[in-house]
């Protein structure tokens, strides 16, 4: 018998239908993947099982967990289930823990609440489960606060909270989306082991088809609140009977066409970074000893040629964003020089930087956070125009904005809209339009597609490739996602602990990484082809 059975589940929030007739089952010891793009209703399905839906939500249908009718259960019954028989892990480890309580308190709290255990016993059990998830007490005492842990360590604490009482079902909602690939692989391994040890059912929610394929026995694909495809992972993905399944799989593996790849050594370098170092003041350990500085970027040198596309890859915290900020002259190096078109930009006053800024623009990760919500698109996209030598007239300005919008696939009528009227992918197009309006020679893109759904991600990558071919823009992609590097870059630089440890042509480097950090990165990347092949073997 199934542990969790969802039959004909419909959900309405206010007057908006969110889920329509969703069917899903999870058996003990089984991993079921729930895949879909943002807004498809994945998280709402999870919250329905937990009965943690927003106020105005109304659910209909049947959700049965271990014989209990969830939709008709009282709040007291649900409190008894949550954290005991059903555990849940959330997407954002940085904010999922209470900042003012120690990790020991937070793990022990649920244990003590459900088992009525005393403080000592609760802490004892908390110690055991934290040890199990890879946070041994010798290095991570119970008295640690969340802010003293890294993102991956915090996610382990959240998993410890969810698995402390050996739940029958664990719901993991995008548990690794906010982590870098190496951490992602570690967390997925941990989840896999916990499933095996406790015969736990795991409902793994993700937008990443490759991750789900590696993990899941069966998968369910959700689109606009409806199940479009479901079945054994290997068969569903190899046969791809449903067009949407095929679409997702293709988008996940999409490589944009770049008919004229850049040939290295063909021109004078556009950007030269020489021996750049960036120190941050460290934490003072004693009043009488000066603090040891923390070296975020350590003697980095690199060059980018015109129209070349370079990817700077590395794990979170390796210093790649700090380096990008210095290249953009938003931060000053402690030592070393950065030259753009042969001219040093380090140590220059803001006014002297204008020409460099005009030819060097940036695209950020978050298409939601990087626009002022109270300004119209015309003004937002025209922002960099103040860098031009000759200020355009009102009419010229509109003309330029319209042209930039056209280049990124938006229409001139979008000029008079506000950012909230656009979807995530369209907003990323807007930020690209803003970046190219001054006809820059170099665009620095910091994780430009990691907040986007796969199909939109494919479109945005195509757009980047097209602009590179058409306008000859050079790119520096900052990413922890090697698939972006493979799709977009002529060359890949691997950064590790502030240093560049490897540099090479994309295909060579990604297929034959030489340094240890590069090998770790490459090995951790979930690959859909490989995952499907492995599942085919397992599932026959």
């Amino acid at each position, binding site marked *: 018998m199934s542990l969790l059975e969802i039959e004909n589940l419909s959900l309405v929030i206010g007057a908006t239908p969110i889920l329509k007739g969703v069917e899903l089952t999870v058996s003990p010891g089984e991993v079921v993947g729930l895949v879909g793009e943002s807004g498809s209703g994945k998280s709402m399905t999870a919250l329905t099982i937990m009965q943690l839906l927003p106020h105005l939500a109304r659910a209909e249908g049947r959700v049965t967990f271990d014989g209990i009718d969830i939709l008709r259960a009282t709040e007291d019954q649900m409190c008894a289930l*949550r954290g005991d028989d059903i555990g849940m892990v959330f997407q954002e480890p940085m904010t999922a823990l*209470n900042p003012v309580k120690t990790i020991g308190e937070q793990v022990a709290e649920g244990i003590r609440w459900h088992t009525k255990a005393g403080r000592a016993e609760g802490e004892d059990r908390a110690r055991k489960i934290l040890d199990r998830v890879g946070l041994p007490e010798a290095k991570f005492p119970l008295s640690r606060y969340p802010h003293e842990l890294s993102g991956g360590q915090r996610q382990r604490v959240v998993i410890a909270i969810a698995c402390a009482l050996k739940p029958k079902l664990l719901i993991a909602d995008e548990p690794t989306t906010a982590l870098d690939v190496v951490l992602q692989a570690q967390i997925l391994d941990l989840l896999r082991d916990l499933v095996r040890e406790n015969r736990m059912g795991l409902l793994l929610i993700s937008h990443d088809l490759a991750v789900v394929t590696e993990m899941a026995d069966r998968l369910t694909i959700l689109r606009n609140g409806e199940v479009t495809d479901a079945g054994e992972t290997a068969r569903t993905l190899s046969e791809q009977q449903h067009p949407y399944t095929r679409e997702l799989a293709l988008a996940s593996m999409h490589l944009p066409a770049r008919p004229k790849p850049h040939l290295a050594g063909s021109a004078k370098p556009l950007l030269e970074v020489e021996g750049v170092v960036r120190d941050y003041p460290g934490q003072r350990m004693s009043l009488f000893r000066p603090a040891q500085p923390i070296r975020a970027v350590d003697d980095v040198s690199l060059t980018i040629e015109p129209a070349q596309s370079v990817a700077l890859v590395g794990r979170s915290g390796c210093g790649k964003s700090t380096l990008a900020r210095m290249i953009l002259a938003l931060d000053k190096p402690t030592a070393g020089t950065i030259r753009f078109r042969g001219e040093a930009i380090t140590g220059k006053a803001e006014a002297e930087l204008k020409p460099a800024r005009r030819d060097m623009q940036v695209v950020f990760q978050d298409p939601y956070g990087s626009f002022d919500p109270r300004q119209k698109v015309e003004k937002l996209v025209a922002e960099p125009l103040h860098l031009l030598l000759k200020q355009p007239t009102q009419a010229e300005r509109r003309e330029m904005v319209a042209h930039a919008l056209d280049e990124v696939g938006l229409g001139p009528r979008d000029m008079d809209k506000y950012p909230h009227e656009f979807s995530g992918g369209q907003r990323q197009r807007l930020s690209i339009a803003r970046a190219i309006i001054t006809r820059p020679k170099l665009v620095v893109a910091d994780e430009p597609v990691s907040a986007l759904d796969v199909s939109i991600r494919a479109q945005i990558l195509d757009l980047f490739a097209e602009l590179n071919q058409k306008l000859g823009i050079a790119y520096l992609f900052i990413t922890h996602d090697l698939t972006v590097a493979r799709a977009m870059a002529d060359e890949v630089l691997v950064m590790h602990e502030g240093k560049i440890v490897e540099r090479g042509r994309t295909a060579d480097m990604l297929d034959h990484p030489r340094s240890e950090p590069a090998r770790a990165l490459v090995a951790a990347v979930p690959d859909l082809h490989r995952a499907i092949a492995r599942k085919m073997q397992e599932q026959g």
Partner: protein
Amino acid sequence: MTAYLLKRLIIAALTLVLASMVVFAIMEVLPGDPARLMLGLNASADQVELLRNQMGLNAPLVLRYLHWAGGLLRLDFGRSYTYSVPVIDLVRERVAVSLPLALIALALSTIIAIPVGVFSASRQGRAGDTLAMGAAQLGVAVPNFWFALILIYLFAVWLHLVPAGGFPGWNAGIWPALKSLILPAVALALPQAAILGRVARSALIEVLNEDYIRTARAKGLPYRAVLWRHGLRNAMIPVLTILGLQFAFLLAGTIIIENVFYLPGLGRLIFQAITQRDLIVVESIVMLLVAAVILINLLVDFSYAIVDPRLRGRQ
């Protein structure tokens, strides 16, 4: 932790020194000669000059500042020009009224505001919340002296539960003294509670939308437990900030209420001293209040560190 506290302590001490210089300088440039004021209009120039020498008013500026500041450190504020008694005695009498009054008002305001804030935040947008916040709006809008008059009419004139005004002194016994402070404390506390309640509500609503509240709910804790255990402590920082400001206000800003209830508090003393040009009393009380405000801020800073481990730095 120690580094954080030490840093705050040093900042507080420096602020105090700076403030004393500013207070001293302001009193220097104010017009009016205390010696002439004490001797009256008929005194001769020689007499005034003699007294000025006696009072040390002719010494160089820096010396006079050091002498004055040194006195402050020994709690020797000098003698009042008008009453001819040590300022410290005057102040001590008044603080014995103002400090308990401020503390009672602060305690009342907190006791009312926190539960109201929690109640409103947990019922955001529903009838109970609307009602509570409507009442709070009214509490902020109504002037406290008018409210004080209504309290006097109700509880003193009509019900005869407490005296309508005056202060019998602590020698008359604790209960009679407390009784005469209850109404003024309530009158002071309500508007403060209204402000504090609104702050607590909005801080808590913000916290309740945080991810860790959902984590706590997913542990199986009932909503109420989540609210008190995980919500309130995280909402404390803005509440503590307002609380600190209110305490500083309650210590000296209560002159209207003191007048309504005929209470011999600090506010009335400073008002009288100003009208009588008793500069040394004004100076002393201002310094005392500055010190009190700095101390309160220091306590608020310390309490931040207790509430939020992120402010303590690494141990």
